[in-house]
């Protein structure tokens, strides 16, 4: 056996394996994962192994998706969306109730949360839709897009799962925005939304209203609804500029921070690494988003552009909503800190997004017109 040949084979194999992977994107995601492992080791060391397994699965999924060309993805758009809608209807009819919400569908061998699927399926479908209307989209097209968007959003909000509904709505909205909906209409919609807010208030569930009330006055109910926000802001504030040090955050270690391995993991990080750590985290997210937007800018087709832009902005939405709620400037909705919070489902969803970005990058415009 020629050792040179063996080495060459291995090198070849590795090269083929990493070929679809975008270096900068992978580097940023890798740093975020490293940071996530560190925080998990403090917030919930007993879950570290399970989360590492989740990461491994997510990376494999990313690698697979990265190899799928955008054209194939476009073909999947309609079937995935339809399956998603059907599953959401099935959830509404036969779903399992957990913590007061009907979110889960028991498939016999596993429990699935179809709303998670919509986070990717939604921009995929809308990007496909605008790709079909390659001519200047008209108002009617936007209206149809809006209907396609609002159907799953309504189904998810009914479960009720406000966090996911907002993420899906945002994902769809980004596609419509990037597709070029006129500013007049955007401003008009914003005004209409402000006017409709009181009506929306009436449609909210009590617990959702409480969360919004709690946001503005958490001390009103310090042991009940306000407890989460009070304890997380105390954790962040007491962290100071450089933090209390890894595994030395009293709010985290003495379990004052609720949900500290999932939605409130940012409070653990912020307490232990301070403003400095927050700046690093914000920087990593900004770089991830910047890289994503760059990929979108250079994407070959309208479909790819819209999809890449929307997927990138999903990361932003996750990060902003999560850090905003944990630091007390947004209401508490169930949105994890992207790539850091514990949980396999969200991680897989996000890495599908990264995989899509990589695939689009791999099929970018090679010639500048």
């Amino acid at each position, binding site marked *: 056996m020629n050792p040179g040949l063996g080495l060459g084979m291995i090198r070849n194999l590795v090269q083929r394996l990493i070929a679809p992977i975008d270096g900068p994107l992978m580097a940023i995601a890798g740093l975020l994962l490293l940071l996530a492992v560190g925080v998990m080791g403090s917030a919930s060391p007993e879950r570290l192994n399970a989360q590492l397994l989740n990461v491994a699965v997510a990376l494999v999924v990313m690698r697979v998706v990265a190899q799928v060309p955008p054209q194939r993805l476009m073909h999947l758009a309609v079937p995935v969306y339809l399956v998603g809608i059907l599953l959401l209807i099935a959830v509404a009819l036969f779903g399992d109730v957990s913590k007061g919400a009907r979110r889960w569908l028991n498939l016999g061998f596993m429990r699935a949360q179809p709303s998670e699927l919509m986070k990717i399926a939604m921009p995929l479908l809308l990007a496909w839709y605008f790709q079909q209307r*390659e*001519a*200047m989209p008209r108002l009617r097209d936007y209206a149809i897009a809006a209907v396609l968007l609002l159907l799953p959003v309504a189904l998810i909000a009914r479960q009720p799962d406000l966090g996911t509904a907002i993420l899906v709505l945002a994902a769809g909205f*980004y596609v419509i*925005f*990037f597709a*070029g909906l006129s500013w007049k209409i955007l401003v008009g919609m914003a005004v209409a939304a402000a006017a409709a807010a009181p009506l929306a208030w009436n449609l909210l569930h009590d617990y959702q209203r409480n969360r919004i009330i709690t946001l503005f006055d958490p001390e009103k109910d310090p042991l009940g609804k306000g407890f989460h926000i009070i*304890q997380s*802001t*105390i*954790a*962040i*504030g*007491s*962290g*100071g*500029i450089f933090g209390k040090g890894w595994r030395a955050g*009293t*709010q985290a270690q*003495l*379990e*004052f921070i609720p949900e500290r391995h999932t939605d409130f993991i940012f409070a653990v990080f*912020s307490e232990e690494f*301070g*403003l400095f750590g*927050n*700046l690093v985290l*914000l920087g990593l*997210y*900004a770089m991830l*988003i*910047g890289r994503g*937007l760059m990929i*979108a*800018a250079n994407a070959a087709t*309208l479909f790819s*552009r819209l999809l890449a*832009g929307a997927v990138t*902005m999903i990361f*932003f939405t996750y990060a*902003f909503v999560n*850090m*905003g709620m944990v*630091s*007390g*400037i947004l209401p508490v909705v169930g949105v994890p800190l992207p790539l850091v919070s514990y949980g396999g489902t969200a991680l897989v969803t996000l890495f599908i997004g990264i995989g899509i970005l990589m695939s689009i990058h791999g099929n970018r415009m090679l010639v500048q*017109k």
Partner: protein
Amino acid sequence: MEFKNPQEELERFRSRLAVAGGFVLVCFTLLFIRFVWLQVVQHDYYQTRAEDNRISLVPIVPNRGLILDRNGVVLARNYSAYTLEITPSKARDLEQIIDGLAAIIDIQPKDRKRFRKLLEESRNFESLPIRTRLTDEEVAKFIAHRFRFPGVDIKARLFRQYPGGAFASHMLGYIGRVNDRDLEKIEEKEQDANYRGTEHFGKTGLEQRYEFDLHGGTGFEQVEVDAGGRAVRTLARTAPVAGNNLTLTVDVELQRIAEQAFGDRKGALVAIEPATGGILALVAVPNYDPNLFVDGIDTQNWKELNESPDKPMVNRALNGAYPPGSTFKPFMALAALTLGKRRPEQQISDPGFFNFGGHHFRDDKKGGHGMVDMYKSIVHSCDTYYYMLANDMGIDNISSFMGQLGLGSRTGIDIDGESEGVLPSQEWKRKRFKKPEQQKWYAGETISIGIGQGYNAYTPIQLAQATAIVANNGVVFRPHLVKFITDTRTGNRTLIEPQPTRNLGLKAEHVEVIRNAMVGVNKEGTGARAFAGAEYVSAGKTGTAQVYSLKGAEYKAGTVKKELRDHALFIAFAPADAPTIALAVLVENGGFGAQAAAPIARQVLDYYLLGKRPKAPAPVDEAAVEEDEE
């Protein structure tokens, strides 16, 4: 249809991307500003809040000070006992756990009731007693089964104990669980921090009055706790400081002999050291057992104590107001001398009544005492002498002199809630009644005041105090129970006022007349039978207070119901020339003072002056009469 322009479209898309990128930056900047606000500007505030979260101050309740008699005999102490306690936050199903415990340890319904009450009042990470005072056997039984009861533990706690039981209880008082009124007092004294963790508070008697001396300084343990309130580790500890001990002026043996002298009769006795105002014995019988109150008294005992016709919860020595009867006469005589209304040798003629505007005020002795001077008026308790004297003096002269002797006002003894009694005067009547015709003082009302009847009503301690003032030649000391307070840490003693509060400026020869006459009472007068054969010279005066107006009918003890029988009174001091003890005795419904009260005084004086212990409660001398026949 517009033509598609890829380049223009791409530019527009890129501009939208730029807008999105700008939006991201704006949002992230907002977050960063928020982080700076929380972590830099407000950092100190949140740092404090985080520390408050983490560090819990666990109070360590100090040992309560002891109460000792003048010779160091312990009257109130603490003892450590095992309690069975449940920490509700660690226990899953409380009812089930308590049922399980009841199977191995005796748990009464009242224990469950108390536990439920504590549970409502407490924060859930405190451990609460389900049973107190476990026996060694019960402790052993529980330990064998401990593994079955998570969150249940045995703890050693200190309990207040009054070793004498139902003895001297009106003086000692008792402690009970802190209630809202107590909390107000604690706040008033700004002792909130020091009372964290304290469960008991003095409710009556010395325990109440000296609460803040007895309590001590609460220690603190800084404990790091987690969000569930579980202690993780101890960070620092400040030891508690035990409360101060009270040493009383009371002689516990004298107190015991005095209480026993009453037998099962109701009444009060106050014995004072005239030269200091120190109280030697403070008896109010019947007593109750203060130990019943320490853990919270159960409803049955509470009902029994409160509904008993004997009213054991009433401190008769301080809160019972009785007409002084003839014990008032020496004070009247002293007033007459001081105000120049009578000379000692001045005689009056007693026909057996005093005629006032056609109304006859009768003397107890039919036919009267004949010619009566001051000495005789006291020795034989001649009413007519004092009817006339009262009439001559007038109500306001009487009340102002008696007021100086402390009658009708609080003596200032170191027990709260003392009654004032009634010192009648024109002023008093104006304030006491509402209708104008009732507000007027009638001269006829002054007459019976002279023999200690009428509106007169004084507490036994006031009578004892007045007696002590006479025994002490007019120098007044505030009656007090606590001799000194000992700081248990330094051993320093704080003496309680050995200084006189005022001097009445009585003339020595006047006091001598009264002393002489009171010696005569016990030698040849109404007290002579009770003091027959005494090896010391004592001064005394009997008294009988009417409970029931006979409206002219002859009083026969046997024919009236017991609770309507007269109260027996006796005041005394001894040795007559240099008194070391002055006292007042009251026996409710005891009949004549000479019959019931004087023999009790004899036993007390015999013990105090001679160390003689009586073999039985003081006898009732049925043969003695209020006004002897000479």
